[in-house]
């Protein structure tokens, strides 16, 4: 549970909020194992942004990814977060990835 609260705190951090596009719309996570059997976190982030993918959108997503991974790994015992990004157009109300 601590890992989850840290994850949410990381997502809420100002450094992510300053990214203009995309925005985090939804996050889910579950504990899992990596290929070597070590504890890991499978994270699903749903981002809202325009289509098609452009440099700004991908750059923003990279910033979010990096802040999330770094934030989680600052905890000494935190498992590695394997992030899956799904995208939603700004004009869509529901749905995750395609």
């Amino acid at each position, binding site marked *: 549970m601590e890992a989850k609260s840290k994850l949410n705190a990381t997502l809420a951090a100002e450094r992510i909020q300053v990214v203009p596009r995309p925005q985090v719309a939804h996050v889910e996570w579950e504990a899992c194992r*990596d*290929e*070597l059997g*070590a504890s890991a976190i499978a994270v699903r982030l749903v*981002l809202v*942004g325009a*289509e*098609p*993918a452009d440099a700004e*959108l*991908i*750059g923003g*997503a*990279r910033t979010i*990814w*990096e802040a999330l*991974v*770094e934030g989680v*790994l*600052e905890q*000494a015992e935190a498992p*590695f977060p*394997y*992030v*899956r*990004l*799904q*995208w939603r157009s700004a004009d869509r109300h529901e749905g995750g*990835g*395609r």
Partner: protein
Amino acid sequence: MSGPSLLHAQLLDQARHLARKEPRRPLPSSLRRSVSTTYFALHHFLVREAVRSLLGSSKERAALRELCARGFEPRAMVAACRRFARPRLPAPVAQPLATAALPRELRRVAWTYLTLRHHRLRADYDPAAEFGREEVELLLALAEEAMRSWRRARAAPQGRAFALALLLGERIAAG
């Protein structure tokens, strides 16, 4: 440095082509192959760079570098990247370096390898896995940034230790 004749550069070009070849409705198979190819681009880049870090880049050692490159195993590289993804190194690695701190650039390389490896396994083995073009483009961008990060960090003592860890895996941290 990364001319078109180098394997990792060819693979990155191929991954980009696969990600964009169907502009309107990308085939899932194209996106899967793009993800897998992006991973292998970073894999071959890191193996090449680690070998050059350990053995130098002289022409006389070319055959030795080829031999050494065959000794890198993905699972050992995953184990090494787990160690180097954290802000601080474990004691057995930190002591000979006289520092436990890891440059962010190096950690970024480790994060990216772990992430790409994870998605490569999904792409190649999980029939239920789905990828969107934006996610695939992001993975490409991560690989490119990781290569730039390595070039900034490779001269540091921790960079050489990382090169060694990629070859040794968990054994690098054996006390």
